[in-house]
């Protein structure tokens, strides 16, 4: 029965399909000629190959070439620190919001305490993230009130054993300048907001 119902086609559909594949094949070479020397391994070439104009194949040959990641790309958090007179100061106050909001509970924090009085001080003594468990949801960065933890752009984290996948404070820490380089728009926005808040505070104080 099925032979009858499509008898009128005589293989045209197959030819069309092969034609599509052939066109694709041809376009790749034509596109290579059109963008001679610029299609591969150049930033413009990669940008072109992820635009709507692209024709032919647009495979990016990782790891020879890498797709640029957008600013919002998130992969495993890092801790921000400021360098003041050669000393490293983490922004983290160990308030405990990130371990609470973390969906798979992969953040462990030990709050520092004053060695003399024993009272807690706003600084993390230890900070661990098990990146095997981290699901890259970005909640810690989203809900951190101090902009102290942010999502990274580095996605090449393969290692030889599982133990090295538990990141401690030293391994998580990155300078603020790094953050400004990977997320310039976010950084500028936060800086502006901080400055404004600071100005308001000063104004209020002088007013009072």
């Amino acid at each position, binding site marked *: *029965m*099925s032979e009858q*119902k*499509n008898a009128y*086609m005589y*293989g*045209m*559909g*197959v030819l*069309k*399909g092969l034609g*599509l*594949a052939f066109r*694709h094949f041809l376009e790749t070479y034509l596109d290579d000629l059109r963008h001679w020397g610029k299609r591969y391994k150049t930033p413009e070439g990669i940008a072109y190959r*992820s635009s*709507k104009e692209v024709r032919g194949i*647009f495979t990016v040959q990782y790891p020879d070439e890498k797709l640029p*990641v*957008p*600013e*919002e*790309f*998130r992969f495993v958090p890092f801790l921000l620190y400021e360098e003041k007179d050669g000393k490293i100061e983490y922004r983290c106050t*160990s308030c*405990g*919001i990130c*371990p*609470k*909001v*973390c*969906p798979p*509970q992969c*953040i*462990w*924090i*030990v*709050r520092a305490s004053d060695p003399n009085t024993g009272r*807690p001080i706003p600084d993390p003594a*230890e900070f*661990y993230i*098990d990146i095997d468990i981290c*699901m*890259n*949801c*970005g*909640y810690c960065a*989203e*809900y951190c009130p101090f902009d102290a933890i942010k*999502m990274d752009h580095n996605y090449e984290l393969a290692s030889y054993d599982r133990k090295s996948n*538990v990141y401690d404070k030293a391994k998580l820490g990155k300078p603020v300048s790094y953050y400004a380089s990977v997320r310039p*728009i976010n950084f500028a926005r936060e800086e502006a907001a901080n400055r404004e808040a600071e100005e308001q505070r000063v104004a209020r104080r002088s007013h009072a």
Partner: protein
Amino acid sequence: MSNQNITLQSDLTHIFPDIISRDERVNFEGYLVKPEHLSSIMMRLRDELGYDYLSSITGVDYFPDNKMEVVYHIRKSTGGSPLVVKAQLDRDNPVILSVVSVYPGAEFQEREIWDLFGIKFDGHPDLRRILMWEGFNGHPLRKDWKEGYYEEEGKPFKSRWPVGYYKSAEQKNPLGTNIEYPAGFDPESWVPVPEEALYAGLSKMERKDEETGISTDQVIVNLGPQHPSTHGVFRMAAKLDGETVIGLKPVMGYLHRNHEKIGERNTFLGNMPYTDRLDYFNSMSNNFGYSLAIEKLMGIAPPERAEYIRVMMAELTRIVNHLALFGFLLNDLGAYFTPFLYAFEERELILDIFEAISGSRMMCNYFRFGGVARDLPEGIMEKIKDLVFDRLPRKIDDLDLYITNNEIVRHRAEGVGVLTPEQAIAFSTVGPVLRASGVPYDLRRAQPYSIYHRFDFDVAVRYHGDVYDRYLVRLDEMYQSLRILQQVIKNIPEGPIQEGKPQYQVRVPAGESYGCVEGPKGELGFYVISNGKPNPWRYHVRAPSFINLTPLETMCIGNKIADVVVILGSIDIVLGETDR
């Protein structure tokens, strides 16, 4: 008729006096029925009141009250919101009548409840475990069941802060003391038994040729779990007569991780990224359904701009899903990977957009209760416009041109895996499978949510109910999605994207809520019960890929074994969602 039905629904207690009563708990809806009358009530609801479509069944364990509850969401296939019917059982010996005879679509869902809650269904034709394996100890969704590496009832765990020295789960709870066996089970002397119960369900037909008197042997063939055609780890035990399928049982659960138990340990907000992992092709629409359910409980609604962004993401995700499906379907048909990669090219471009907006290509985690996580980055609207107005219509036309009339596709797909409209409704199929069978049922129209009522689009319907029509319905749907997207892009307003301040501790008032969206695979529902605590008391996912498998046997019987692969491909399952 429909008017009459509405009045009848409001007075269900008058139609069934004494055996049905309103659910009086605060923030709960629907009716409580006496379990012994369930079947007759369901029969009358279906035949007299037009509730012909069973949407979802789930169990709830009210551990402190020593009660179990079975919750039925039934609908009319003509549209409208679901009617919620509940039956309460004794927790020590929970037995209830099966509704498979009324709604055949209940088969797998009842098996799931038996598996996870231990509620027995009297009269179920094949009551075996479905997600866990036979011999598993206990029923994991019961509140007193503790999983391996159990730490606390709910997150956040206290060991993480302020004194949180890292300890891996294995260190805390070594595997050796973490295994429980059923009473009388000795793992040393245990010999694995062949799955007789599974195969027993298959041997229904005796085959003897009347004319020649020759009786032929029938063969059982297991497809999967490690089989490329099953799109993951899914197994089908098929009974064959020659090459013809005469019985087929799906076996699932290989990817089961008890998403619902994890969800009940999680905080409400913490569940959002987990929903991404259900149907990993469509994380945006999973987010959508879950946020609708919680927003209903919280009584908030997102601002205008967020609504538009949500719809835009949901429709882009539908195109992504259908493109991926075309690729896989053609793969299943033997067009090895060339068309697949052509379809994936467009998908990549859309995923680039998702990545720029949400930060991740597939695990988007973009929706929040009362809005979305962040506003669209600069320049992304231009990219979306280019795709929606220019590239995608062109490329979908291409697909249409090359696939729709390809004779191999038509030979293999036409008249294969037919599901009649009556069967499609009875088996609770949803989405493109239902619409390909001639039932114009689309939640975006049947029970409009978000702002879908503002858009001009058609519900795609085809009438043959075969694989080819399921393909065509999806093709039509992509065009309709483009139509919606074009309207969204024209009308998207400026403004805030989040209602109120973003909060990490979400206060969800006590009550129940069922939020559902028309996902690319069909009705995706989230049934949530909150008791006012930070973690949901019950969190259930009505998974379209799971329930759409119920009629798989019906579709396959009478077809050749090679067609089974195509039929399964046309249902469009994702194992992350099927097995949950």
